[in-house]
């Protein structure tokens, strides 16, 4: 599974480690990266950009810690996140479990292990969404504006984690056509990007991922 197209947010208070992480993610092919040094900045970015995934350090210096941040994400944004932390004691782990993270990577991190964690998290997240695709038809009953068959196809592809190019290939359409359909889809779902689309779908269908 390709994680290169994912928009990833790195939340880490130690600048050297944050920088190293970003470089490593770039090495993995990721181009859409955001970074925050604390929970406040992270929430600001999430609210504005709604990234696909967040890497969160538990210890964040001043302000809220990573677990508190995760709770807020769960409450308001429902994007998947992975803890990246030096904490590995039972107490921290049990607190971590309650927030249902998509993954957990121990510091000092190993880039291969981080990549694996990102892949697994992304896979599991969209797998959960795909699991609901069977009911995707129900979505029209709950939306003010119903989706067309093509738009529904696109929605499926988005939930598979496909890129525009992949969708175009899959649906035998040009990338531009895909973009047009996507615009319509975004409009109908009141979304600005893929992540928001998925979020919307989740909300409409109810329940978590």
């Amino acid at each position: 599974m390709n994680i290169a197209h994912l928009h990833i947010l790195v939340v880490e208070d130690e600048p050297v480690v944050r920088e190293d992480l970003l470089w490593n993610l770039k090495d993995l092919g990721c181009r859409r990266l955001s970074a925050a040094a604390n929970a406040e900045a992270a929430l600001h970015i999430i609210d504005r950009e709604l990234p696909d995934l967040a890497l969160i350090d538990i210890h964040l210096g001043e302000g809220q810690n990573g677990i508190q941040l995760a709770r807020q994400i769960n409450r308001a944004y429902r994007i998947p996140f992975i803890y990246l932390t030096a904490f590995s004691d039972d107490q921290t782990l049990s607190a971590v479990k309650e927030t249902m993270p998509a993954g957990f990577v121990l510091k000092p991190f190993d880039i291969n292990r981080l990549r694996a964690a990102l892949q697994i998290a992304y896979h599991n997240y969209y797998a959960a969404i795909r699991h609901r695709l069977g009911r995707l038809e129900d979505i029209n009953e709950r939306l003010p504006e119903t989706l067309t068959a093509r738009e529904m196809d696109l929605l499926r592809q988005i939930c598979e984690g496909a890129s525009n190019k992949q969708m175009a290939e899959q649906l035998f359409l040009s990338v531009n056509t895909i973009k047009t359909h996507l615009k319509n889809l975004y409009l109908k779902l009141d979304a600005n990007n893929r992540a928001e689309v998925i979020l919307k779908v989740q909300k409409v269908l109810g329940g978590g991922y």
Partner: protein
Amino acid sequence: MFTSYRKIITSLVFLHTSLLFSTLSGQTTAPASAGDTSRLQFYLDSVPKINQTDPKRGIALAEEGIRLAEARGDGHTASRLQLYKAVGLDIAGESQSAIDLLQTTKPVFLELGDTTRAADCDVNTGIAYYYRGELDQALSFYLQAYEAYHRIGNAYGLSRLLNNIGIIYRIQDKYPEAVEIYEEALNIKRTEKDSIGLAATFQNLGLLYSYQEKDEQSLHHLEEAVKVYQQLDEPREVASCYTSIGDALINLGRLPEAEERLSTAWDYFRNFPEDEYYSYTLQLLGEIALQKSDFARAHDYFEQGRSGIDGGEKKELLRLFLEKSAEANYGLGNYRQAYDDLKAAAAWQDSLTQEKRLELEKEMEARFEVAQREKDLEISQLALAKQQQERRYMLILLGIAVLVIGGVLYFLYTKNKTNRLLEKKNAIIEEALGEKELLLREIHHRVKNNLQFIASLLSLQSRHVTDDRALSVLQQSRSRVQSMSLLHQDLYKGENEVAVEAQTYLSRLIETIFSTQNIREDRIELKQEIAPLRLDVDTAIPLGLILNELVCNALKHAFSATKTGKLSVRLVPQEEHLLVEVADNGPGIAEEEWQNTDSFGYKLIQLLMEKLQASLNIYNKNGATVQLIIRQYQLL
């Protein structure tokens, strides 16, 4: 025969404590004009005297005096008057009131320190009991007083008291005891020069000896008594002594002397028919006449003696006279008369026997009652004892129950206390442990963060290095940091923070090396044989680092990018050391070459080996096998 009637008709000279007081003077009312002191003195002087003639008036006067004394706060005088009032009550016949009053007054005297008058109370109590016929009670009080008088050396009181005690012994037929008492009294009275007392005691002793048929001794004491009585001009007592002397002389067979004394006595008693000695003297005179066979005179005496007796209390005496009379009549030849006398005597005898029988019956009855009462008493005492025993058992049971309950409560209390103490201690320990845990967690967290920081630093720096050798150095360093940090991941996860699971740690280490070296799993066949050992941190760190070097070295040199290789890692405990073996199927290692190349890896291995006291062997057979024998290690 003589003895029996002698006892009947003879009473001893009784000395009432009233004898302690001087004779009555005329005055019987308190002097109105005199002061309180002299008025009280009047009461003290007059009450005892008035008691003898008019006890009721004596009592009233005493009460008057008591009120005055108490009003003046004169407790001693009040108590003295109480004593006199009690004597008055006794004389007036109210013996119980007298006894009660005496026994309540006695402790007052004792408190005031007047032991003599306290003893006087006992003496008068004894007298009251004596008059009621309760001789044992009387005796016990007399003896109490006797001891008290003895202690304080009151000879006068003692001598009078001895007299009274003697009387009781006499009545109880305890002659030897009585004699002893009188002898003692005699001594006192001699030293005290108490003539009348002395005479009375002599007389009493004389009588006592006569009861015991010790006529010589009787005679002697009676003669002594006569001497004193004569000096004191006591004609009645002289006469009574002569009668007794006559009796003794008859017994001794000295009839003329006896007749002489009895005649003298008779000269006195002929004028007092009521006197008990009247009949007694006649009796003895008759006896002498009988023995002289002068029956006519004997008969006259007996007749005369009998005439004054009207039966009643003196039945025994009457019977004696009738018998004697019969004897005389027989001597005179008046057989008919003699027969009648004997018959009458026999009738009186019967009557007496009857009385005696009745008395006996009464006594038997009384004894039976006493026995019955004793039996009842015994039964009630037994019942009481049983009850007491039951109560004792109950108390013992109760005691045991209390002890047991107390013990249990105490046990629970102490247990609870201990528990609370333990809880407290546990809480403290837990708190300390919690703090320690927190601290450890924090330290591990920092160590790992720092390791991450170092790793990131090395990683970032390597991005700005173009020289391949320098890049390799940085990457190797990063790999070593990673290897050390792996250990920390496992180290602080659970409770066995100091132990490192060899299997987990080493396999993860190898996996990490593969991962950082970008080795695809299908390219190299990895074989691990790691014993399930729990290593000490100080063993695990150098071991991990050495293994890191050996595996990296094997991956670097043994395998070309295209060839599929085999790598085997073993950690096996042997007899006295640990064996670590890393084998590959590469071209093999020339040890000298490895040493000589400016390899930091080899130097690091040497340094770490020193810590583990390890030795290194390299075999080249189907590849290279590096064997490490670790001698200094610690398993947990």
